[in-house]
């Protein structure tokens, strides 16, 4: 009985392995710094830009997709967020640079949930911040003359009250 049971177990295990390899099709993503990352096809489903490409090529074999605008560091951060089911706590742990880059990649790859999550996090971050903080945050160059800026601030004076310290 014991021997038979072990045998049966081994068969089932092999079967399960076979099925797994069949079910989980992988996609190879090549990042801007030349790293190839193999990810599950289910992950790519949320990346609508890649999905559109895959539908157009319609192949059963593994696909290599270049991501010249995404670094391996950012891609692995995105994978973490996705496997963590977009936990807010994970987002809070990101640095400002990471948050901005992930938001841009989410926009580029058309990942709706991730875009909403990161854009909301950025909005939360800058909501009560000064104009100077936000200029620095987005690398915005101030092209107003000092007189123009003074005038503008005067127009909406109430919007400058109660702003957080930088």
């Amino acid at each position, binding site marked *: 009985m014991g021997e038979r049971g072990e045998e049966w177990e081994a068969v089932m295990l092999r079967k399960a392995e076979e099925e797994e390899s069949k079910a989980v099709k992988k996609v190879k993503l090549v990042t*801007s*710094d030349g790293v190839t990352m193999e990810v599950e096809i289910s992950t790519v489903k949320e990346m609508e830009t890649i999905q559109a490409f895959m539908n157009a090529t319609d192949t059963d074999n593994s696909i290599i997709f270049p991501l010249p*605008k995404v*670094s391996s*560091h950012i891609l692995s951060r995105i994978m973490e967020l996705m496997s963590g089911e977009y936990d807010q706590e994970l987002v809070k742990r990101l*640095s400002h*640079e*990471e948050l*901005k*880059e992930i*938001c*841009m990649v989410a*926009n580029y790859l058309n990942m709706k949930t991730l*875009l909403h999550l990161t*854009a*909301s996090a*950025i*909005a939360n971050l*800058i*909501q*009560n911040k000064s*104009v100077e903080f*936000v*200029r620095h945050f*987005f*690398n*915005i*160059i*101030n*092209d*107003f003359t000092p007189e123009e*800026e003074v005038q*503008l*601030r005067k*127009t*909406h*004076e*109430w*919007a*400058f*009250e*109660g*702003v957080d310290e930088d």
Partner: protein
Amino acid sequence: MKSGCRKRKKTKTEAPPPEPFNEDLMIEILLKLPIKSVLRFKCLSKSWFSLISDPQFARIHFDAAAAPTYKLLNLVNESEAYAVDIESALCDVSAHAVSNIPVIARFDRYGDSLSVAGSCRGFLLLQCLFTDFVVWNPSTGIQKQIYYSNWYHLSGIGYDSLDDDFVVVTVTLRANKTVVRYFCLRTKCWSRVEYSVSYAEPKLELRNGEFLNGALHWIVKSADNLGCVLIGFDVREKRLLEIPLPNHLALFSKRSKIYYLKREFSITPQQQLKMNKKTLFVWM
């Protein structure tokens, strides 16, 4: 965290420099911000200024459910007005609950005679001694004066979403007819329509219409003065409708006031049998 930052900076020098946020992405973020932040960020640069000043942006920002604000406006005197953000007041963020807003520039001229005649989508309709109207956006300070010289009983401001136009409406209740005058802010002219139905005027405090589902609504007394009817003026179709009230309300709601809860109507009879004891009917 610090060492992580340094490490990332190293890899960043190898990678191409980060691209600036494009306009779509900027809009995505701005739509999630309250009006106060958005106005402040007009100062960031010329491109942000023109993006935020675009009327198309103002429309979608208002419609975005992500950052709605419910404000209670309190005009204290000629030089002070406060906007109380109801939601942050409830959340006890006292620092952000009250903000001083710029008082309407003509306030000193109008003085005490200025009163609120309606509100819609963040705009207030102010009236001055039953003559001129002023449409005012307290957040941006933008105001428009509308000249008007006719007598009227009911007033209000509505929004035509298809034409993206605000419509100021007055209703004059005559013994044998009802006269509706409306002013479209786009065409900047008054139009007049007459209806052969007649109604009796309601109490003074019930004269500001409630805007809901594309129409301004008022409760008026029926011509025979026995009961009440709800009338609506569709600001898109520009026509007057009569909406029958539920039977039990029609009789005793002469002093009812309309409020609306999100998308449904509620009618409150103001029967002050006892202080603080009012009946609230929710009509859906």
